């Protein structure tokens, strides 16, 4: 028989104060959500290690296979030319969107929305964690490049800007998987969002300079923000500080901003739809 007799006796004591729950505030919400997301990262190494190994593998492979042909034909240092591509590979598409879908499916997202937490930090906190992760992923790829002999013409400041710009690109790209995650709550759809990575990264100046592109690919590359992001990153690697370098970096920042305007807007719209009580 069920034992319900474990309740202690009720003594005659005055009432004690109850805990005062209250909204924690935007920054505490943001920090709390981001801290949880960052804490999860080392607990899921399977989701991080490939994001680090694959770009390094292809960077080394491409240099070995294409360096002589492409480098000689285009008169470029292919190691330096391809380093931004490797970093972009490392930072693009890495997000907590799959974890967000898990939260939605197992009800934890509901648990969070029943608390007084503001809704925006539920997304921005994850994105802050993503930013920290992708910048951390960019650094080892950068170090591999340096080890292979890449020289940063813009020095340490350029190197830092290189990592930051790459990280922000990685951040704005996460808007797409987050939008899909929040809209669908479907892990399959989030995984499928990775296909967006291919046209954005490959229909561009990934392997050859823009001048070497022809026909439709050149046209597509002209309108692909990745072209300008790679150009800005390459300028930081290969060109000393100068007006053209600053212009290229400025174009890259504009391209990241334009892409982010679309992707983050989509994510915020999806968040609003998700937390709006049906």
């Amino acid at each position, binding site marked *: *028989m*069920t*034992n*319900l007799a*474990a*309740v*202690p006796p*009720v*003594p*005659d*004591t*005055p*009432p*004690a*104060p*109850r*805990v*005062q*729950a*209250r*909204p*924690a*505030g935007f920054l*505490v*919400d943001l920090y*709390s959500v981001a*801290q*949880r997301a960052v*804490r*999860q990262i080392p*607990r*899921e190494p399977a989701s991080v290690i490939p994001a680090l190994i694959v770009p390094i593998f292809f960077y080394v492979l491409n240099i070995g296979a294409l360096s002589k042909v492409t480098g000689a034909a285009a008169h470029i240092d292919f190691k330096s030319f391809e380093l931004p591509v490797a970093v972009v590979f490392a930072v693009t598409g890495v997000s907590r969107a799959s*974890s967000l879908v898990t*939260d939605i499916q*197992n*009800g*934890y997202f*509901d*648990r*969070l*929305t*029943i*608390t*007084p*937490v503001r809704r925006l930090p539920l997304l921005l906190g994850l994105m802050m964690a993503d930013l920290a992760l992708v910048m951390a992923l960019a650094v080892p790829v950068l170090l591999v490049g340096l080890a292979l002999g890449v020289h940063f013409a813009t020095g340490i400041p350029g190197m830092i800007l290189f990592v930051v710009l790459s990280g922000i690109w990685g951040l704005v790209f996460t808007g797409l998987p987050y939008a899909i995650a929040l809209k669908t709550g479907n892990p399959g759809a989030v995984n499928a969002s990775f296909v967006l990575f291919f046209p954005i990264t490959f229909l561009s100046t990934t392997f050859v300079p823009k001048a070497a592109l022809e026909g439709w690919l050149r046209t597509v590359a002209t309108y692909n923000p990745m072209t300008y992001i790679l150009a800005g990153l390459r300028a930081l690697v290969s060109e000393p500080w100068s007006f053209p370098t600053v212009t290229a970096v400025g174009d890259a920042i504009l391209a990241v901003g334009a892409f982010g305007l679309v992707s983050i807007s989509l994510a915020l719209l999806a968040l609003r739809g998700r937390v709006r*009580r*049906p």
Partner: protein
Amino acid sequence: MPAKTPAVGSATFPGATPVPARRTTPLDDVGGGTGVGRGGHRPVTSAPVDSPAIVTEGIARQFDDYWAVDGVDLSIAAGEIYGFLGPNGAGKSTLVRMLCTLLRPSRGRGFVAGHDVAREPELVRLQIGVALQDAALDDRQTGRELLDLQARLYGLRRDVRLARVAQVLTLVDIGSAIDRQINTYSGGMKRRLDLAAALIHDPQILFLDEPTTGLDPESRAAVWTEVRALQRQRGTTIFLTTQYLEEADELADRVGIISRGHLVAEGTPDALKRTVGTDVIVAKVGELPNGALEALRSLAGVEDVVCRDDELMVHAGDGAAAMSPVALALHASGTTVKSLTLRTPTLDDVFLQLTGSHLQADEANTANSHDPSDPPPPVMASRQAAPAGTPSVPGGLA
């Protein structure tokens, strides 16, 4: 003993039921400290005794062309355990999700702690704790991390958070596993951690949506103990949905029975059972010969006979006295009797009478064999020693 009532908001609703007196205990020291400030404590203040904790007025929710909840009126007093009983799909969880601000009512209104769930969801959220049907946890955090995050989002200071985590852990008894990742927990531990997360901010009102579904008997008993302790020690109002008859019977001060989105009955478990009125002799039979039913109905003291599949339910004012005549009549009519049981009315009988179907056929028929810790329906052997209306006690007569 001093009687206090927890503050449950400023609204006083017309037609509200009296609020039970709130008792105080050592666990009132939860969190410790004094003073009201950011993430601190608020004093327990008196509220109007006629301020119900939960009120709904014709609340309803439509999904496409289907009304999952269709015009439910409730008034639940502060400090009360209210059991919301119904089969799967009856509308229990939909009502809970409306009251805890996850779903917007399609029609009608709901008030929790004096705040409108549709217009003031932020204020409602500060007053409620919720454990939904499936333990909503993040498997990749440790139990302590999850509780601390939960407490942060309720704006609790670090010292209060530490104290509250320690306090809820004494209540839900997770032990050293609290520092392990949740993916190593058993189902019962997850459910208890879910309850702890719902309690971390010391809510005045707690929603528990089928808190013991899928739990083993030991874990179920532990949750029952925790729910009782919360009511007695913290004066927490508890809205509990369940599909388990004995759970509602054991825990709830009052029970609402929901069927197909409608509240079909409400009252104390004993009062509801008294509406059925009579003892029930249940006979599992083989093929029923002609005239058997008539023979039973003609017996002195037998008020009604209901035949359902292979089950005969003989209602009698004094079941013990009618037992032998019923057995003899069945034998005389040539009926093969597989078992013969006498019991007092259960909430399932109430549900059967109101809706024409069993609430939970499997559980009602096999409580003994499936779940030894659950109190099975009462039977003659023990019933004689218990006063009328006493909740289920074990025993058997076959």
